[in-house]
């Protein structure tokens, strides 16, 4: 599903941020991406979400080579993945429903289909009945679940989460992790960037560890 082959990312100012990173996440696999701050976690995620292009190597997402994708194709590649952010990235002036519906509106679904899928996604993250609320009226955990609902509403084959539990207390973190486990069980590939060591050791998942731009364990 996601394959890194000798990927190097070099910035003119700082040099190599990632060096010869290779790993392969299979369909339905769940993995943590960890490492000290500055190890290159964010850069790796930015390469997957096509915000940046790698300097050398090859990144394959669902068989598609990201390094050779044209600018015009990038939106369509981004629709293949659900991305969850530490700061949720919700639209504060839109309701929960509109926030979750956004990827479907962008993909051009009809409104009946949108309503059906949004309700299903909110149901999965147990936020049914909060469709008409605004994000600020929700707790941090609830806002994060809105973000998750938005990431999965388009049924993407891969979910990328950037510090999804960073702002949450342990109990809420566990709930979120449990949710990821559920997505994994139905065949979704999940990659979670986190430095929450206790959480990582609790769950017996694959761990990709970055150290100064190099993958030290996978």
């Amino acid at each position: 599903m996601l394959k890194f082959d000798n990927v190097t990312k070099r910035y003119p100012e700082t040099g190599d941020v990632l060096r010869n990173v290779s790993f392969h996440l299979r369909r339905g696999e769940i993995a943590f991406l960890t490492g000290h701050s500055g190890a290159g976690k964010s850069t790796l995620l930015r390469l997957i979400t096509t915000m940046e292009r790698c300097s050398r190597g090859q990144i394959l997402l669902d068989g598609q080579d990201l390094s050779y994708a044209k600018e015009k194709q990038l939106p369509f590649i981004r629709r293949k993945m659900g991305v969850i952010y530490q700061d949720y990235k919700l639209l504060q002036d839109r309701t929960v429903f509109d926030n979750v519906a956004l990827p479907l509106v962008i993909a051009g679904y009809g409104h009946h289909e949108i309503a059906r899928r949004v309700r299903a996604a909110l149901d999965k993250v147990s936020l049914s009945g909060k469709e008409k609320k605004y994000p600020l009226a929700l707790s941090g955990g609830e806002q994060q679940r809105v973000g998750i609902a938005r990431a999965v509403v388009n049924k993407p084959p891969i979910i990328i989460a950037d510090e999804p539990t960073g702002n949450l207390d342990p109990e809420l973190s566990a709930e979120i992790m449990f949710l990821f486990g559920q997505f994994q069980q139905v065949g979704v590939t999940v990659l979670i960037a986190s430095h929450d060591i206790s959480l990582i050791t609790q769950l017996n998942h694959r761990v990709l560890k970055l150290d100064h731009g190099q993958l030290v364990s996978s």
Partner: protein
Amino acid sequence: MKQGNKNYIRKGRPIKPVRHDTRQTKTAGGNFVDKLHAYRDLHAHALFSSLGRLVASPFTSIMTITVLAIAISLASGFYILVVNLQQLTGNLETSNQISLFLRDDVSDAHANKLADNIRKNTKVQSVKLITREQGLAEFKTYSSFGAAINALETNPLPIVIQVLPKNSLEDKQGLEDLLENFQRSPEVDFAQVDLQWVERLQSIMAVARLFAILLNLMLGIAVLFVIGNTIRLELHNRHDEVVIAKLVGATNSFIQRPFLYSGFWIGFISGVAAWFIVTVLMLILRQPVEKLSGLYEGGFHLLFLSFTDTLALIFISSVLGVLGSWSVLTYQLRQLKPE
């Protein structure tokens, strides 16, 4: 923690296996008609939501639209001024005729024959003979010297033949040749053409027309930039929204759409407002102008913006709105990289 998970399952419904739709990279699910409807809904939504956003910040919108409306009304005001001046010079076109003042010893019959001869000339459009008596009668009615004329024993006026040449305004050389020709004939005392001041007026008009075009061009560019800047500010205000839309896979055309509609609305409303301003100004000017025209015994009537002019005005303003926002969006969206 296990307890928490169980609670969770009870709250939520168990997840059914997901069937990945790999085709959804380019097109969404649903049939063609559904997609067409979705596309139409998107446009309708962008059309009305952009109008709603203008209404939501009335102060900014009114300021922008007022500035634009004044600029556009200046341009169209100058245009209508030139149209009106053209009407004025249009009336003067007959002044380009040649007047032949005949010698005193030429008889009416001889003059008639001469007029017939001139009529045969292919360069001549029409000929009018004014006999001494007709000239006197005309002079009496149109000037205030009627009483003085009556005191004269003999008629001092010569026979006049008025010749209207063909294409007199375009073919200056032909006119000169004709004039020379007439001057050589023995019956003619002197021939005169009121060309010079008509020509001057024509060139003043040409300058005014050119000035109007240049002014409209400048104001059009100003409108383009004002709208572009407004859209740039709106894009800045909605930066988060744009970034999030990009992150979840929005194409540039999806992001552009509501902004293009904003530009359209700003242009359209400014166009309508400009029409209103011009029309009100013309209504204020109408009476004084008609009074002035009356003093000159002129058949001059103030021309307002015609229906076609109005449509063109609103159409051009709307197009400028869309163009202004499009140029800014194309540039800004390329610059914008989601963080």
